């Protein structure tokens, strides 16, 4: 799946793919959002979950005051998406679940 397929969904602020050590592999973000910071944060959270819970492929949805973050560890790397709180989270999750 291409990143553009995901970023087409309304209220998605950006999506990207990061390596396990937090470097950006690919990203598509709207202006004002830092892809590198988001990639680093996604890698940090995934590594913490893996260490704490002993999960092979970690996946998390994190709700903050303003936005919602989807993080998923795939074969290619750590996939991450940022969207607004009032976005269709179910649709975004379905799209992300298709990524393996």
């Amino acid at each position: 799946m291409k990143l553009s397929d995901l970023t087409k969904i309304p209220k998605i602020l950006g999506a990207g793919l990061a390596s396990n050590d937090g470097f950006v592999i690919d990203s598509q973000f709207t202006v004002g959002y830092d892809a590198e910071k988001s990639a680093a944060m996604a890698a940090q959270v995934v590594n913490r979950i893996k260490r704490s819970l002993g999960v092979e492929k970690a996946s998390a949805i994190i709700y903050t005051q303003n936005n919602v973050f989807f993080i998923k560890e795939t074969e290619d790397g750590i996939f991450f998406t940022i969207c607004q709180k009032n976005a269709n989270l179910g649709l975004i999750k379905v799209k992300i679940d298709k990524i393996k």
Partner: protein
Amino acid sequence: MKEVEVEKKVEEVKEKVPEPVPAAEEKVKEVEVEKKVEEVKEKVPEPVPAAEEKVIEEVKKPVEVEKEVEEVKEKVPEPVPAAEEKVIEEVKKPVKVEKKIEEVKEKVAEPTTIPLASLDKPVKRLLRNKTVKGVFICSKDGLLIQNYFEGRTDIEEICAMIAAIYTEAEESFKFLKEGSVEKFIIEKEDETISVITAGESLLTVVTQPETKPGLVFVYSRKIINEIREILG
């Protein structure tokens, strides 16, 4: 004629007499005043020694006053010493208060009701869902507060892990300036862990992977409101 001549002579003599000097006039006046004072002194009678003596005698008679005081004293009744002593004795006597202390019945110590008991109802409603494995509440430090997860012994370890993930995510999002973490879902192969912040505590719901996360959040909201009321 003789009279006329006399008058003329008198007038002549008067003309010849020099006018009185002012200093002499003053002296004359002083002499006259002195004379008048002497006359007044002579007229004033001398003080009678007998009257003076009488006044002194009147002042010197304290004996009579003393007598009157004694008479008044005799009329006033003296305090009765016996009555005073009685009163003192009555005051000195300790008042014996006879109050019976009620015996306190021994009560069997009952475990104090936990304020979290009010959480039971909404939690049980959540647990009725077959896909929900268990629920537990822990502090943000990772300490267990309440456990509704039966058949699992490593709850305290999971609490610590959940708290660690929460704090790490919180720090990361602070770095991103995205605000604090409200809730997060961790998807594992065999189960899904939903963590919701409620004040200073974390509500964790462990479900099967096929559960509906929306339903979990709806039920959890009621539990969170209760937790906020109880734990703040």
